[in-house]
């Protein structure tokens, strides 16, 4: 602190050590200005810009040479969109103290950005134009201008406030509220904005009306309702209507939920269930048809399988008939072989061997021609072959090899049915081998075929012997 009279540095005393003037009161004025500056700084720190401006102005009223206060005031003006006012303060500050003054930096920064400077100038001009339009009652045009201003400088405090006021006048309270919120974001302590906000809040939230005096009713209707605009909608609200709060709201919500559940249960669910049932029945019917169809196919296939099996059996039997032990194919081959051997004079034994392979069962079912050929060959070779087999059979009989004797003598008789001796010895071979019944049969056959033959008498005697033995 310097003496106002001589400029000397002041001490703690209430007088100047250099010139002796009384500086007590002067010091108090300076101290008061410093206190105002400190308070302004505190308010600026908490964004109470209006309060800060007031304190800083008081500080400068007490002490115009307070450089810090003036610089801070200029800064606050610049922040709130009053750029020219801010520049003015900085210029004055630089005039008071040119060196070591931050105002020089502020001014240089603003002047160096010409584009920004022009933008600031334009916004101020438009704002002034908007204010003029408001005074001329052209509120819509003013709104347009103000919106342009705020798009260029969103922190222009006065523009926000004016726009909010216009919205309040037009009963667009929601928009007014938004603008006021933005205003208070910039300057928390702005009393005008707080006053407007309080009014708008009381209109938008009527439950607060009971605590406040002077309820703002925008509607001229005396039926107890309020009419106001919210965006593009006009809202008509009863004054004394209170929204349910707390338990009441909860109960009402619960009731609504229950009613909804009942509607769903009694109206919607049965319809859905019926639809589901119909769909299921349709599916079941379709499946049933498919099953029936498949069953019919299965039955058909089963009958075809049965037919095919029967055909298979018949065919196998037929094949077996041709290929079996007494098969036609083999029998034909044997007869052909026998005929061939006979024609080529291969020897009676060869012919006999082939004929011997032909079974008697086949001969019974063979054709007439087949039997004729067989019989012819047999007669051609029979006597010769029969003689050979007879001699062979007698030899076996004498050797008591009755089984071999039976084979040979059977063939001997077969090839020469007139040989009664062969039949006799055949019967004897059966008798001697123990097959009495067959022996008896053969003896009877002999008697029947050769009743007057000598061996027939022997056969009769043998039969009597057998009968007596059996008795």
């Amino acid at each position, binding site marked *: 602190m310097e003496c106002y009279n001589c400029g000397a540095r002041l001490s703690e005393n209430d007088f100047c050590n250099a010139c002796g003037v009384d500086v007590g009161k*002067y010091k108090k004025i300076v101290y008061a200005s410093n206190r105002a500056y400190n308070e302004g700084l505190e308010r600026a720190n908490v964004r109470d810009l209006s309060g800060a401006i007031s304190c800083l102005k008081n500080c400068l009223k007490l002490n115009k040479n307070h450089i810090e206060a003036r610089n801070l005031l200029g800064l606050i003006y610049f922040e709130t969109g*009053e750029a020219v006012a801010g520049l003015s303060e900085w*210029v004055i500050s630089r005039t008071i103290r040119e060196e070591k003054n931050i105002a020089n930096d502020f001014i240089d920064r603003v002047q160096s950005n010409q584009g920004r400077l022009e933008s600031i100038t334009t916004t101020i001009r438009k704002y002034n134009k908007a204010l003029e339009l408001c005074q001329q009652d052209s509120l819509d045009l003013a709104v347009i201008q103000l919106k342009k201003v705020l798009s260029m400088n969103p922190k222009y405090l006065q523009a926000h406030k004016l726009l909010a006021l216009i919205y309040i006048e037009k009963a667009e309270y929601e928009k007014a509220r938004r603008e006021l919120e933005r205003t208070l974001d910039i300057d928390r302590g702005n009393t005008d904005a707080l006053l*407007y906000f309080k009014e708008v809040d009381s209109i938008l939230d009527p439950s607060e009306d009971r605590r406040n005096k002077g309820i703002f009713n925008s509607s001229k209707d005396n039926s107890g309702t309020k009419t106001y605009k919210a965006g593009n909608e006009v809202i008509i609200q009863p004054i004394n209507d209170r929204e349910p709060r707390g338990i009441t709201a909860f109960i009402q919500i619960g009731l609504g939920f229950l009613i909804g559940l009942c509607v769903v249960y009694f109206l919607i669910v049965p319809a859905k269930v019926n639809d589901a049932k119909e769909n299921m029945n349709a599916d079941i019917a379709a499946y049933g048809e498919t099953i029936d169809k498949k069953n019919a196919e299965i039955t058909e296939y089963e009958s075809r399988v049965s037919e095919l099996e029967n055909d298979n059996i018949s065919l196998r039997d037929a094949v077996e008939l041709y290929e079996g032990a007494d098969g036609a194919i083999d029998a034909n081959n044997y007869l052909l072989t026998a005929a061939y051997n006979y024609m080529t004079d291969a020897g009676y034994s060869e012919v006999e061997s082939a004929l011997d392979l032909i079974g008697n069962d086949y001969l019974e079912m063979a054709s007439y021609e087949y039997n004729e050929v067989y019989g012819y060959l047999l007669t051609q070779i029979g006597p010769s072959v029969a003689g050979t087999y007879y001699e062979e059979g007698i030899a076996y009989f004498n050797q008591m090899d009755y089984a071999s004797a039976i084979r040979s003598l059977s063939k001997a008789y077969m090839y020469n049915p007139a040989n009664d001796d062969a039949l006799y010895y055949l019967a004897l071979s059966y008798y001697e081998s123990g097959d009495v019944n067959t022996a008896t049969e053969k003896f009877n056959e002999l008697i029947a075929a050769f009743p007057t033959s000598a061996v027939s008498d022997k056969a009769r005697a043998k039969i009597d012997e057998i009968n007596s033995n059996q008795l």
Partner: protein
Amino acid sequence: MINFEEELKKFHPSLEIEDSESDIYNRDLTDMADLFIQLVKEDYDEEEIRE
């Protein structure tokens, strides 16, 4: 209750660049200290006149 007209009166045009020079020149920068000094000087002058 907010009166639009009354509230509108509180709004003043902002300073434009062209107005800044005149604003600075016309600003009354007299502060309390200046008034105090003036009062002291007036008292001193009166004392000298009496003497």
